[in-house]
């Protein structure tokens, strides 16, 4: 059984025709993955490093498929050059689903620097992002964000704060 927010997020992605997913799992996005793994209409590829997912989903887009990359914000750091020099440069859209460690309530000091850098990194890449604090906000903004991504033909990001997901307790 996945958490309530996770089912809503999986539904936002699916109802926007996203059926191809890449992931390096973390505790939080794994709740969403449970829904996607259980769905025979979805393909989830576990990659070894998040940047690989950027390449894979860019290929899927060139072949006509929409894709989303599910990862922790540490993984965003592993993707920066590929997002910039492939997706932003060539206008290849991708939906990033990023669990936000290293912010409110964080117990692990090693998570904090990337947690605080997540928004500035997305801003520096010109990637439009939302950070819904509740299921209601996710439902109000999720479809619009994904639509904007494909209208601009650029990456967009849904950042998942602890207020939405319950975070990870240390």
């Amino acid at each position, binding site marked *: 059984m996945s958490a309530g927010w996770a089912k809503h997020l999986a539904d936002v992605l699916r109802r926007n025709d996203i059926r*191809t997913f890449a992931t390096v799992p973390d505790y939080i996005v794994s709740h969403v993955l449970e829904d996607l793994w259980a769905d025979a209409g979805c*393909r989830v*590829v*576990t*990659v*070894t*490093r998040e*940047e*690989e*997912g*950027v*390449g*894979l*989903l*860019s*290929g*899927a*887009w*060139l*072949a*006509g*498929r929409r*894709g989303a990359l599910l990862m922790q914000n540490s993984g965003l750091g592993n993707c920066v*050059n*590929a997002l*910039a*020099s*492939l997706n932003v*440069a*060539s*206008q*290849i859209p991708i939906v990033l689903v990023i669990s936000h460690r290293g912010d409110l309530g964080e117990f692990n000091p090693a998570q904090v620097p990337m947690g605080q850098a997540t928004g500035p990194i997305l801003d520096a890449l010109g990637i439009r992002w939302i950070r819904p604090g509740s299921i209601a906000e996710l439902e109000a903004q999720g479809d619009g964000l994904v639509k904007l991504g494909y209208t601009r033909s650029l990456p967009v990001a849904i950042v998942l704060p602890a207020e939405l997901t319950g975070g990870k307790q240390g």
Partner: protein
Amino acid sequence: MSAALTRAAATRLLAGRLTGEIVVANLGQAALDLQTIADRPLNCYTYGAMGQCSSIALGIALARPDLRVVALDGDGSLLMNLGSLCTVATEAPPNYALVVWDNEVHQTTGGQPTATAARSSLAAIARGAGIEKALEVRTEDELRRAYDRMLGEDGPFVVCVKVEKGRSEGRFTDRDVVGQARHFRQALAAR
């Protein structure tokens, strides 16, 4: 030790055999040679994201199992994304072939040696990742046989081609990366 094959000759030999395959070319020398020798709508040239050629091709192969996808990578670039070999082995798309032009140097940046100049074998790494059809090729005869197999049999294949050092004689005349991605996507959609 310099190998007998050149990247341009090996590209030309491949181009002569292509029909409806998708070809994804790594940034730099692989893309330059392919564009110069055999530019075609079903070629996807990459200009950034060093290391991602093998993954971009995997994404296309998984999305379009009806088409054969050939990636032309370089040793320096594949060494940046060795994990992609594990993902290829796990997903095991039969329509996927990764050709590596292995000249044992970072050619575009001036010829600094890579790990394949020392002790590392990309074909052995691919086998260790779980790709059974991982070949290393040093002569034209071996290359012809490898092309026959990777264009005729179910994959996934990794064909590591030991080639001489040397820059491409081609020059990019069109760096409209947005337009090229759009045109490639349209060409693929029409197949």
